């Protein structure tokens, strides 16, 4: 359990990092919190010649609230800092609710928001959450900055839409629209394990109590965070009663992969149960909160 030899660079700025990434190319790996890359290095599943450490780059950490217009979360913001941030609780309650499910406190002390997203593990909570809240990923390279929607960022197992010379620098979370609530549900065999299935639900209602927006995004059932688009469409235009939710969820076809912890049919069962619970929880949070964005 000792890593293969690697060189180590600890740049102090994003610009310096981008230069180093461009000059080392595929031989280098950037390390954020290292809570996924560390095990891969120790097990020699990753053997980069050079490790570029982002932990000294102060400009990459921190959360800025945009006065009612959402949040920007720096890529190197520690998961525990986001979990305990009043700004995150106010502007992205789904993220605040899901973060305590990410591994254990000790892992979240070191693990980062950007690192988890760039790692693009489809079993992880954060990719599903940022997809459900329609966040944008802010990506930089030497040639400039670009922004892409979360749903276009996750390309496959452990594969994000990042070129070798590109760095994820921040996530922009839009403001929660009025009468929009959310919930996270997951099932894991032990506290802190990756969930077998997780479900992020966001429900928006119009003035008459009819669904005008539904996002339902699952972890653990595909190579990317999987949106339940049939169920989403079935909910829009309806009052979200338990029966309506059940019918919408039942209409959704999924074809999850099987592994040691769960067969495909067991995962499909979990999707139904957890999506129902998440959508009902999000709907219950609408009670008494008709005029303001809430969680």
């Amino acid at each position: 359990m000792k890593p293969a030899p690697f060189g180590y660079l600890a740049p102090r700025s994003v610009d310096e990092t981008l230069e180093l990434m461009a000059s080392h190319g595929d031989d280098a790996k950037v390390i954020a919190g290292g809570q996924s890359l560390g095990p891969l290095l120790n097990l020699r599943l990753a053997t980069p010649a050079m490790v570029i450490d982002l932990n000294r780059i102060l400009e990459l950490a921190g959360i800025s609230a945009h006065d009612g217009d959402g949040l920007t979360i720096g890529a190197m913001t520690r998961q525990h800092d986001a979990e305990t941030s009043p700004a995150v609780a106010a502007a992205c309650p789904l993220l605040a609710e899901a973060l305590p499910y990410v591994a254990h406190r000790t892992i979240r002390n070191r693990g980062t928001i950007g690192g988890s997203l760039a790692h693009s593990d489809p079993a992880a909570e954060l990719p599903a959450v940022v997809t459900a809240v329609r966040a944008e990923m802010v990506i930089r390279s030497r040639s400039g900055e670009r922004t892409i929607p979360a749903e276009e960022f996750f390309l496959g197992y452990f594969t994000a839409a990042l070129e070798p010379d590109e760095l994820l620098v921040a996530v922009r979370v839009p403001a929660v629209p009025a009468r929009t609530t959310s919930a996270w549900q997951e099932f894991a065999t032990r506290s802190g394990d990756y969930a077998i299935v997780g479900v992020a639900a966001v429900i928006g209602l119009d003035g008459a109590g009819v669904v005008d927006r539904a996002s339902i995004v699952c972890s653990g059932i595909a190579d990317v965070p999987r949106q339940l688009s049939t169920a989403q469409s079935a909910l829009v235009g309806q009052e979200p009663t338990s029966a309506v939710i059940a019918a919408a969820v039942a209409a959704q076809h999924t074809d999850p992969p099987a592994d040691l912890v769960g067969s495909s049919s067991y995962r499909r069962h979990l999707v139904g149960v957890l999506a129902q619970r998440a959508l009902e929880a999000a709907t219950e949070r609408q009670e008494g909160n008709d005029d303001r964005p809430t969680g």
Partner: protein
Amino acid sequence: MTVQPDEVVVTVTVNGETVRHLVDPRTTAADFLRDGLELTGTHLGCEHGVCGACTVLLDGRSVRSCILYAPQLDGCEVTTVEGLSPVPGELHPIQEAFRECHGLQCGFCTPGFLLTVHEFLSETKGADEDEIREAISGNLCRCTGYQGIVAAVQRADETWQR
């Protein structure tokens, strides 16, 4: 063909003492503490971030030192189990509680538990059993079955003046 990477200098304060060492970048922080500084209280179980035995405090926060690398310690403060008690030769109240409540048997996992619990109790008073079990869920013990450890945390919650 592998080219041996350059060693790097790390200056780190461990248990209040600042040291300067030349390290191979791939050295884990745990190996650096154990082999470089001869602080063998930090234990290595799984060596890939699963078991929690190697937990130390980095700038006051619990981290797993087996998936942290020695160069990353540069400029930081580390507390290991050897630095837990403020009085050399005496046990910290958390350690006393583990002894009194049979919170350890073979003791291999204990240093990691102690530092995890130190962070938890530094921030929390009067936690119930569910909260305690959640707090220690990232640390594995293969002897005690956790009952004694939970009891020790409850005892330390009462006895540790903080």
